């Protein structure tokens, strides 16, 4: 294990701190998305309007989780992303099928 | 190497021979001699696909045998190093594009015919006259309800020739599948809300063999039925005969009369209706039992067989839903042999209609009847 100098460690630490700030912002926006989603349901908007919006909120929130909290935005996550999206592809087909060709 | 080739050739010859020997199978069971619209349409599609496959097959096999014969290692080639070709763009494009084209040729009629077969609503002008029948698959028999005609029957489905008869398919226990190969493709019968629809359109009169095609338990392979296609006039006759059954009529013989009483005493009536109007449908409707060619779908409908069935249904249909549920509650001897004989006499004289499978025998004549 090649030991790096403590300078580079300090640098990394600073970068981590920077990132942590982003994480806080991420978290705050996730809470906001949640509030919007719940708010729309409680507010009793039309369902054709509500459903797409809350699903969108969920997708954005999940993207935040994946890219920031789970660091998928960092490099070296190409294959994890590929596999995850392949999984999402299969997941999408599965759910689509269950919605459309189970009852007739 | 020569041996290899000739051996495969012999094999091929042998299999073609087998085909000739067996012919195309029983003429009222095979899918290869269609006698109805659905089977006909499908047969065309099959032939188209076979032609495409034969074409590709010939190309593949030609290259295959050429390569195997031409490029086998020769005696002096132990140390020969062939050229290490990486590929050939032209060839690779060729064998990508040609199959795509062939598949398009197959896909277009496939889609067209898939939609055609799924078109199960009668057209505007014959909406009134179109016959719709509810088919219910049960372990291990079929129940029919001619809604428009107010007739309920079982096992044998009477239809007129020359028109589409619409079926609504359902099951009451597990999945079955309704298949009359010579007239039409199959369709599953689902338990629950998922009702399926299909049509039968027989071109000619005949007794067509039907099979249950979805594993449904121990007697899956015995869940046979018949579709009896008769001329429209005969069909109308049959309908009116069935609608006018007199269920109270006294049987001619004493034995049959006693049988009729036993039919109630031994709780048969709890599951079997006699009378096309309906009633219990836990077991097959027996209104025209005497007209049937087959007992429980596949056994010759003789008195002897019927008595055997009544004494021990397991003998003919393992796992059937009648065993142990009738008679005096004694699972071993629910009814005596004498009683069975009397009931048999009663059931066999239930022949309300002039129209029987005999009237539709035209296509059945070329294959011998089984024992």
């Amino acid at each position, binding site marked *: 294990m090649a030991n790096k100098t403590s300078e580079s460690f300090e640098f990394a630490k600073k970068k981590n701190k920077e990132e942590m700030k982003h994480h806080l912002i991420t978290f705050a926006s996730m809470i906001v998305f949640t509030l919007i989603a719940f708010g729309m349901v409680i507010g009793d908007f039309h369902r054709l309007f509500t459903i797409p919006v809350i699903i969108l909120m969920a997708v954005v929130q999940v993207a935040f989780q994946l890219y920031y909290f789970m660091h998928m935005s960092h490099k070296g996550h190409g294959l994890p992303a590929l596999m995850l999206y392949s*999984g999402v592809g299969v997941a999408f087909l599965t759910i689509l*099928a*269950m919605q459309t*060709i*189970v009852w*007739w | 190497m020569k041996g290899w080739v000739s051996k495969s050739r012999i*094999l091929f010859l042998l299999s073609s021979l*087998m*085909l000739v020997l*067996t012919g*195309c*199978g*029983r003429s009222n069971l*095979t*899918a290869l001699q269609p006698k109805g619209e659905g089977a006909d*349409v*499908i047969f065309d*599609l*099959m032939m188209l*696909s*076979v032609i495409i496959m034969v074409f*590709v*097959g010939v190309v*593949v096999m030609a290259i*295959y045998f050429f*390569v*195997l014969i031409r*490029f086998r290692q*020769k005696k002096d080639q132990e140390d020969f190093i*062939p050229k290490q*070709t*990486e*590929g*050939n763009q032209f*060839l*690779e494009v060729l*064998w990508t594009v040609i199959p795509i084209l062939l*598949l398009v040729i*197959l896909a277009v009629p*496939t889609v067209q015919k898939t939609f055609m*077969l*799924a078109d199960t609503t009668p057209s505007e002008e014959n909406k009134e006259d179109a016959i719709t029948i509810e088919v219910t698959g049960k372990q291990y028999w079929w129940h029919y309800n001619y809604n428009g005609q107010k007739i309920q029957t079982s096992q044998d489905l009477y239809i007129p020739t020359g028109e589409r008869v619409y079926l609504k398919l359902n099951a009451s226990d*597990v*999945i079955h*599948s309704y*298949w009359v190969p010579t007239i*039409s*493709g199959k*369709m*599953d019968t*689902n*338990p629950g809300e*998922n009702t399926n629809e299909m049509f039968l359109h027989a071109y000619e009169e005949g007794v067509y063999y039907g*099979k249950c095609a*979805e*594993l449904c338990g121990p007697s*899956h*392979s015995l869940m046979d039925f018949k579709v009896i296609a008769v001329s429209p006039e005969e069909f109308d006759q049959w309908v009116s005969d069935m609608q006018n059954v007199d269920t109270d009529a006294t049987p001619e013989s004493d034995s049959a009369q006693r049988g009729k009483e036993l039919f109630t005493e031994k709780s048969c009536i709890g599951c079997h209706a006699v009378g096309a109007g309906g009633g219990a449908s836990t077991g097959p409707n027996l209104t025209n039992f005497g007209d049937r060619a087959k007992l429980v779908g596949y056994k010759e409908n003789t008195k002897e067989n019927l008595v055997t069935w009544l004494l021990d249904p397991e003998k003919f249909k393992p*796992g059937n839903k009648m065993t142990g549920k009738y008679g005096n509650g004694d699972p071993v001897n629910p009814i005596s042999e004498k009683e069975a004989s009397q009931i048999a006499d009663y059931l066999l004289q239930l022949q309300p209609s002039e129209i029987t499978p005999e009237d539709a025998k035209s296509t059945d004549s070329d294959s011998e009847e*089984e024992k």
Partner: protein
Amino acid sequence: MSTATAQKQGFGATLWDYLTTVDHKKIAILYLVSGGIFFLAGGLEALLIRIQLMVPDNNFVSSGMYNQLITMHGTTMIFLAAMPFIFALMNIAVPLQIGARDVAFPFLNSLGFWLFFFGGVLLNLSWFTGAPDAGWTAYAPLSTTSPGHGMDFYVLGLQISGAGTLIGGINFLVTIINMRAPGMTYMRMPLFTWTALVTSVLILFAFPALTVGLFLMMFDRLFGAGFFDPTMGGNHVIWEHLFWIFGHPEVYILVLPIFGLFSDIISTFSKKRLFGYSAMVFATVLIGFLGFMVWAHHMFTTGLGPIANSIFAIATMAIAVPTGIKIFNWLFTMWGGVIRMTAAMLWTVAFIPSFTLGGFTGVMLAAAAADFQYHDTYFVVAHFHYVIVGGVVFGVFAGLHYWWPKMFGKILDEKLGKLAFWPFFIGFHLTFFIQHFLGLMGMPRRYWVFHSGDGLDLGNLISTIGAFFMTLGTLIFLYNVIITSIKGEKASADPWDARTLEWSIPSPPPFYNFKQTPLVRGLDPLWVEKRQGNGKMTPAEPLGDIHMPNNSFIPFMISLGSFVMGYGLIYQVDDSRWLFVAIAGLLITLGSMFVRSVKDDLGYHIHKEDLEEKGAGSE
């Protein structure tokens, strides 16, 4: 631990070694042996099926027994014979082909095997009390209402062995991605490794659907849930979807690695590099991709409607294109080469027309409207035995002949190999070719009897005779295995004049595989060195200590625990005291996992000096 493996061992020690091994080469042998046993069991079941169908209205087995036989035959062959064969071949070849010392997760490799094994044993124990009888597809509600415990064994046996397979899949994914030797880029990987990679991806995404399906079925059968019960608002179509979302990719899981090994074998025995390598890779990926969009072609008659049927029909047909690319590339690899007809090559050459015919009938089935006639008839039985036996089983035989020297250090007798081939090959076509016509002549599948007078007698008789020919072939192969292990000659490192890395090290390889990690300089690295170098791989690193994983008994215990839990769950419906057995099993599993996570397992080192002592000339 290192000393234990180095010494000559008694039987007990050997047994213990295999129970605890994490060495991919030994796990390969474990997979091979258990897969082989299950194959014989499945074959025996097939024979009984064929004997029952030899003559019309036969009563050789009862109808209930017949349904158990077909269910167990299908389930055993797919999950317990074909899958472990695939894993055996992947285990022996993949790490060696990429120049790795072991797989990425040796411990998980072992765990995957033992879970598979115990799942298989659980499933087969059902024979004592009544085996599952609703077909290998286990369609509800027949399966959920089937009396007795047969279907419970099916559900839990497959659940446990499925977990093992999933673990194995992830292991191979990471192995292939992370453990490649320097210079072994993706586009230099042998085709077998490529197909193993794609197959692992398919496993990763297909098996979870089965897992869920089996859970739902378990809840319905054992805990009173109503997923598939129409009276409770359930719907059996959900099962059909889940099963086939798994089931269709599963058939490509089986056949892709076989495609890969055929590619390696054909190029080896034609002395040519693979024709259209990148097209082959692309086709593999495309088949994997399309494999997930076609599952409903098994459900054309379920009643999904013409729109869904058409979409799935077209998607299904599309798979013919990449598969065709493969067929033609194989033919053109042989074109211009020098073909050596060894036993391995014989199976391969026989595969091409057999599989192609199976593929053709597949495309015919894909024509949705026509499938209304084919579905659930012997036409389908013929189709899938043509692709599975003519593809997968031929492939396994070819692969075994090819890699046997690498696994056991001895070459399977070539004469006997060819002698086994002919009866099997002829029997195969005899059995299954005629079945196409049986189906079209009105014989549905899963039929315990057919009636005399239905015109099906002769075809069935011929089919049965064919099955006996296949048995003969199998027996000759078994004899070959025994004879070879007794007096076969020792194999050299590279008996076939082959092209890939596994042939650069001794047969069988030392337990650390490569003394020095090789440097890969091109596609077919060994061939490159043989033509352009001195015939040996150049090392990519100086000789140094080698880090090795420790053996472990924990995988066995985890699997044993889940086996016990499965048993308990099955019988708790009869008597709730069995719940304690289930809980005990769970505790064994969790406890073993706990031990695993708190006990550091750092492995050990083989020291440089020991390696030098063993002699530099181990190649």
